[in-house]
């Protein structure tokens, strides 16, 4: 199927994150107090509760932590199947995403993947991942 690209609701404090996606850049939130990378991004650090957090560009590569082929989708995804996964970024965080441009049967935990942005409505693109070729 051709995956739908639902528009994310852009909360004011994440405007910079979504703007970067339209330029093909994946940002992480980094805590300057404890050093942790934070996902999903938010201003207060969920690890040490510092508010001294900043944007940092991620490399956009990682490995599949776990995945599923959803065969009974709902809403915009009702025309399943599609792949839902957590990808563990090289920087550490495990992010929910879709794996695209792939053979379902060739997927496995640990598979190297890289980010690919799919334009949603104006002002945002969804960070999906595909196997590293």
């Amino acid at each position, binding site marked *: 199927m051709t995956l739908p690209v639902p528009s994310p609701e852009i909360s004011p404090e994440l405007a910079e994150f979504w703007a970067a996606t339209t330029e093909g850049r994946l940002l992480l939130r980094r805590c300057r107090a404890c050093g942790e990378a934070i996902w999903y991004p938010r201003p207060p650090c969920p690890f040490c509760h510092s508010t001294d957090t900043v944007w940092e560009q991620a490399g956009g590569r990682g490995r599949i932590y776990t995945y*599923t082929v959803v065969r009974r989708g709902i809403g915009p995804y009702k025309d399943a199947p599609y792949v839902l996964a957590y990808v563990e970024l090289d920087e550490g965080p495990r992010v*929910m995403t879709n794996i695209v441009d792939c053979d379902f049967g060739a997927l496995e935990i640990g598979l190297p993947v890289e980010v690919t942005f799919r334009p949603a409505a104006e002002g945002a693109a969804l960070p999906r991942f595909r196997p590293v070729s």
Partner: protein
Amino acid sequence: MSIRGRAFIAGAFEHPGRRLPDISVAQIHAEAALGAVADAGLSLDDVDGLFTGRDAPGAGGLSLADYLGLRGLRYLDSTESGGASPLYHVGHAAAAIALGKCSIALVTLAGKARGHAFGGPSLPEDPFETVFGARPPLASYALAAQRHMYEFGTTSEQLAAVKVAASVHAQHNPHAFLRKQLTVADVLASPLVADPLHRDDCCVVTDGGGAVVVVSPEVAATLPRQSVKLLGHGEAVRHSNGGKVDVTVTAAAAAGPAALREAGVTPADIDYASLYDSFTIAVIEQLEDLGFCAKGEGGPFAADGGLIAPYGRLPFNTDGGGLCNNHPANRGGITKTIEAVRQLRGEANPGVQVPGCELALVSAIGGDLAARMRSAVLVLGREDA
């Protein structure tokens, strides 16, 4: 006992904003929470109780707990009573503190009424999960099952054994939605719905409901029916943990020990368990997290017949559970509690009544397995326990 003198308000903070177009509702909650704990001379790491109303994003304060990174919660209350909600929360927090259920409770309220109609706030995780077809709750259980298989060698046959055990029990329940006894091969032959989960790894979808009545010891003593004694209770939360999500462990790993400790018993003492069975993998993970077997050994536990009444190591869900009997409103907590009461009263269906059942454990899950969930566990005994 009363709450008089048993609890104190140690911190208070009013957000200075009156027009806040540039921050989200979750962030206003966060700033208010940070202000209040700072006023008290505490940190969010100290908070072990969370009290929120409908103005907090997500069910039961769960999304806010995730947003704030609250990892030590052992008591949650999401009583919704309009503008009076925080007063309910302070009163309920005092009661919980008096009983030792928590010691540092956070009560928050926040919203953006200017330019927004009445209604709940959007979820801060939505733009990072829902847009990808997160497909709650099915997909989260599938993601957990896939990883559990990878880490521990769990198999689809072992997952299927959970369904088979439930179906054995359901044969004895004339009200069960599915009464046909299934085999492992039957389950594996059912269509995949979210790999590696098959249709028969899922619970039934039913109308219906249930209720329980909780009374004081004085009232129980006057009633003709045998009551069931509440011996222990525990609650816990797990969430995405800032990106360090681990889908192989449920919040029962914290809620279970709390309930067992309060009851003064160990997993080996439990005669019967009602385990939340929205999906087979949930049962496997709970068996491990509640201490009925080691981590990673839930699959063999089920495949060896350990769940089958009346003589398995731990007879479970003897009504047929959510997997075969009933899952009213897509919420299994009430039927789990009711079947434990039947077992302790000796009133389960005769073919599955556990002989001499004196101690039961009830474990329930709310939300997406491991990724963002609440667990609650009860330990129940006979009236004379």
